[in-house]
């Protein structure tokens, strides 16, 4: 489903962020990228979302070479990947309801479907009482749950979570990781990027370890070892 083939990313002549990275991710897998801050985890995800182009090598999503994809292909790929981020990346001028509905609107879904789907997802995620609130009126945990609701609402094939627990307390961290596991159990691919040792060790899933831009380990049931 996702394939990185000898991917190198160099920002300036002497700043190599990723070097010769190769791996494949199958549909339905739960894969964690671990590494220290600045190891290159976020760059890997940016390459997958088409926000960056590799300096060399190829990144494939469902057979499409993202580096050569045109803007409409990139848009299609991004709609198939639900994103959850450390800084939530919510739309601050839109309400909770509108943040989630926006994703379906982007896909051109009919109003009836939006009116049906959005309350359902907000109820599952526990935000149905806050539909008219703006993101800055929510707590950190609620904002992250909203980000998850937004990532799930259009039933994407892949969920990408970039340090999703970075700003959360242990209780909310546990909640978010449990949700990601639940999502994975429905058959969706989950890619988690984190430097949270405890989270990784509890998961017991595939772990790809990145250090200084190089892939140093890829274990089916990995632990956080740096």
């Amino acid at each position, binding site marked *: 489903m996702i394939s990185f083939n000898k991917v190198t990313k160099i920002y300036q002549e002497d700043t190599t962020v990723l070097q010769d990275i190769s791996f494949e991710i199958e549909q339905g897998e739960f894969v964690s990228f671990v590494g220290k801050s600045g190891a290159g985890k976020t760059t890997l995800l940016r390459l997958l*979302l088409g*926000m960056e182009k590799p300096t060399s090598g190829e990144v494939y999503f469902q057979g499409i070479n993202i580096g050569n994809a045109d*803007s*409409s292909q*990139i*848009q*299609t*790929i*991004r*709609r198939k990947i639900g*994103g959850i981020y450390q800084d939530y*990346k*919510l*739309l*601050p*001028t839109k309400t909770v309801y*509108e943040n989630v509905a*926006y*994703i379906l*609107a*982007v*896909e*051109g879904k*009919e*109003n009836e479907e939006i009116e049906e789907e959005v309350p359902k997802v907000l109820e599952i995620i526990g935000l149905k009482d806050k539909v008219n609130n703006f993101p800055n009126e929510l707590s950190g945990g609620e904002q992250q749950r909203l980000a998850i609701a*937004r990532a799930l609402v259009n039933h994407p094939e892949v969920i990408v979570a970039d340090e999703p627990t970075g700003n959360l307390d242990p209780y909310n961290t546990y909640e978010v990781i449990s949700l990601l596991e639940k999502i994975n159990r429905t058959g969706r691919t989950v890619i988690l990027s984190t430097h949270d040792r405890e989270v990784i060790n509890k998961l017991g899933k595939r772990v790809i370890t990145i250090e200084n831009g190089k892939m140093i380990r890829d274990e089916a049931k990995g632990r956080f070892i740096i």
Partner: protein
Amino acid sequence: MLTNFFRVFNFALTDFNRNKGVTIATIFVLVVIIMLATWLFIFQGLTGFLISQVQDKIDVTAYFKEGTFEEDILKVKSEILVMSPNIKEVEYVSQDKALEIFAENHQDSEVISKALEEVGSNPFLPSLNITTSGDPAEYEEIANILQTDQYADLVDNVDFYEKKDTIEKVYAITKNINIGGLILTAILVIISVLVVFNTTKLAVDSSKDEIGTMKLVGASNWFIRGPFIIQGAIYGIIAFVISMALSAASAYALSSKIAFILPGFSLAEFFTSNIWIFILIQLAFGAGLGMLTSYVAVRKYLKN
């Protein structure tokens, strides 16, 4: 397609309602710019009126020999109209008419009345008063035509060379006023674009992260850009309505005062007769600039 358009329109209206501070500031700036453009156009109307008033007083006169038949003079008149397309007006003044005008102009002067009586006969020559757009070269061309051998038996004298200095001075002044007007317009257009662009840019800059997120979730460029452009249009249309009301009110209120300074010029009439140009200018500076600058300001953040 239609659903998407309504959605984009709805997003624009919602953002417009929620960002009241930005909305008011942007509309205020647009009204100022539109009013500047409007008053520049009115100023050009005023200077145009002044220039035409001065130019209408400038002419060259071709005096015909005593005894020249009226039909010969009128024939010359139609010939020069064909030969020189720059002529704005040619007025035939007969000997009697010239005397009548002179007498009327000097009716209060006893000395002149007595002098005319002493002369006994009509001392004036029939003439053609010729007006062009004001260019000295045009007047010279007509003077030269009238002084060729073709008209030597009819034309006594053309007073171009006596009036040459005045014609040149008036022409230079009007030309400079026109150039000054053009430069002023160009400067104003540049300033307007920059001011409106910066105002729109500030509004768009505050949504920089939001645009990034919209890109990240797979929104198309038009889906992101649309609400900003529609908001720009809404700002512009509201600014247009306010400016139109202000312009109409000020045109009618100041009309009598301007007519007092500049007799013959009615600002209210100028406004009414040029209403479509005013609408065009105000819409172009309001909605046009609002939309265009929104388009450009958002483009920067749509690259990734």
